[in-house]
């Protein structure tokens, strides 16, 4: 059985030569829910953008048995649902329906299949009534849900979330946590929200300055306050 996500000694530097990822290796099994935590600039977002080949560094990234490269890009992007931190970046169509339909339409699926995918994705995030609304005018929490629906409609095998709870009020945050807990997909979530991490992700990976500095059960790592403090994290 192959892993859902396999990252093998990945290195990446931005054009200004600042090393953003240094020898990063990470294995995530199908169905696992893993949190990626670390301070700002630790390399979390950079790592996430490697998982569907938007950035490519030195090393190997394999998603669901497909090695990420020029030829597999299309398949990899269909397998990895990437939810960006700012839902405004993800919602670029005039209506919610068109945004959620973008992925399946791009894949060239039939009209009926697309409609079915949109309906089920919207109902999965409990936003079925919003199909004809204008994405631009929704609240932050609503936009976040639509952003998640817009990747769920691709039936991804892996859901990758960048700061899923950033900018949400407590009620929207709570609703999102319940929603994510129910989704039966492999999940990798980058976050500073350690309370959400404890609730949602049994396994936790800590990154700092481009390195993975710890990887283990969330409960155990959370008790190591020295470790958390050393990497700019705070248990709340």
């Amino acid at each position, binding site marked *: 059985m192959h892993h859902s996500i396999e990252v093998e000694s990945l290195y990446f530097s*931005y*054009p200004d030569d600042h090393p953003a990822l240094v020898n990063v290796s990470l294995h995530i099994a199908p169905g696992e829910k893993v949190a990626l935590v670390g301070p700002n600039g630790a390399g979390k*977002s*950079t790592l996430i*953008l490697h998982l*569907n080949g*938007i950035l490519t560094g030195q090393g190997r990234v394999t998603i669901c048995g497909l090695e990420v490269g020029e030829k597999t890009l*299309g*398949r*990899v*992007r*269909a*397998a*990895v649902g*990437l939810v*960006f931190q*700012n839902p*405004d*970046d*993800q*919602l*670029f*169509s*005039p209506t919610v329906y*068109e945004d959620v339909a*973008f*992925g399946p*339409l*791009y*894949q*060239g*699926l039939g009209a009926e299949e697309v409609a079915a995918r949109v309906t089920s994705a919207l109902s999965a995030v409990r936003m079925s009534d919003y199909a004809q609304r204008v994405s*631009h005018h929704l609240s932050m929490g609503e936009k976040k849900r639509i952003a998640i629906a*817009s*990747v769920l409609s*691709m039936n991804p095998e892996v859901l990758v979330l960048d700061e899923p709870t950033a900018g949400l009020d407590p009620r929207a945050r709570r609703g999102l946590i319940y929603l994510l807990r129910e989704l039966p997909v492999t999940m990798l979530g980058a976050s500073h929200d350690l309370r959400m991490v404890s609730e949602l992700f049994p396994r936790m990976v800590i990154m700092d300055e481009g390195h993975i500095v710890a990887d283990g059960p969330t409960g155990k790592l959370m008790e190591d306050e020295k470790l958390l403090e050393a990497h700019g994290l705070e248990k709340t």
Partner: protein
Amino acid sequence: MHIHFLDPYRPHISPVHALDGRVKFVLTVAFILTTSLTPVAAWPVYVLLFALILAVEILSGLGIGYVLKRALLALPFVLVAFPVIFTNGDTALFSFPIGSWMLTAHAEGLARFVSVALKSWLSVQAAIVMASSTPFPELLQAMRAVGIPRLLVGMFGLMWRYLFVLADEALRLMRARAARSGQSALAGTRSGGSMMWRARVTGGMAGNLFLRAFERSDRIYVAMLSRGYDGEVRLLPLQPMAGATWGALLAGLALLGLLLFFGILFWG
């Protein structure tokens, strides 16, 4: 993650980089004025002007290739002057028919066209050297120093500041689109969608970007108001220029003035 390539400034240690931004700004404008006021077909003056800008390029350490490659930007605009070859002058060079029309090229027109082309090429080079060797804030200061209205300078500054934010935003939008542009595992499906649909999506993105720029400008204005902005742009006073800097400015102006005088005297 950010877009930097829009910024033409190339940091480097050279006498041209070290020169006061105000001097560079004034001399560049003077160079462009001299070039455009030099009479048509004053070839030796063009050669001298070219030698001058070439010397500055070498001195700046930017590389002649770098400047010349970017100077090709002037090429499409030069085409506007193309018709003067046929409309200007009496000495016919050659003619050819287009339909029922007879087009005749004239020697005077040709000289004028080549002059226009050379002049724009030289002017663009001067602008490139200035923009590549002077950080933008210094250019803004220079604009203030020569008396361009502060509101206008303030607008240039804001435009510069938010151009990058907007470009970053566009980059993130395109990234999010790429992330959802997958390929189905099902046999017989062709990914990409139709041309029309893709055009519609791109149109939606452009509209979205416009709306966001619009809203951001509102938020920026509110943030300015809340810090006491009352429609008047207030800036720190400018540093006085040192004696040597004045010297460089006057020497540059004198040289350009001499070239212009020379050109008008013999070819005007």
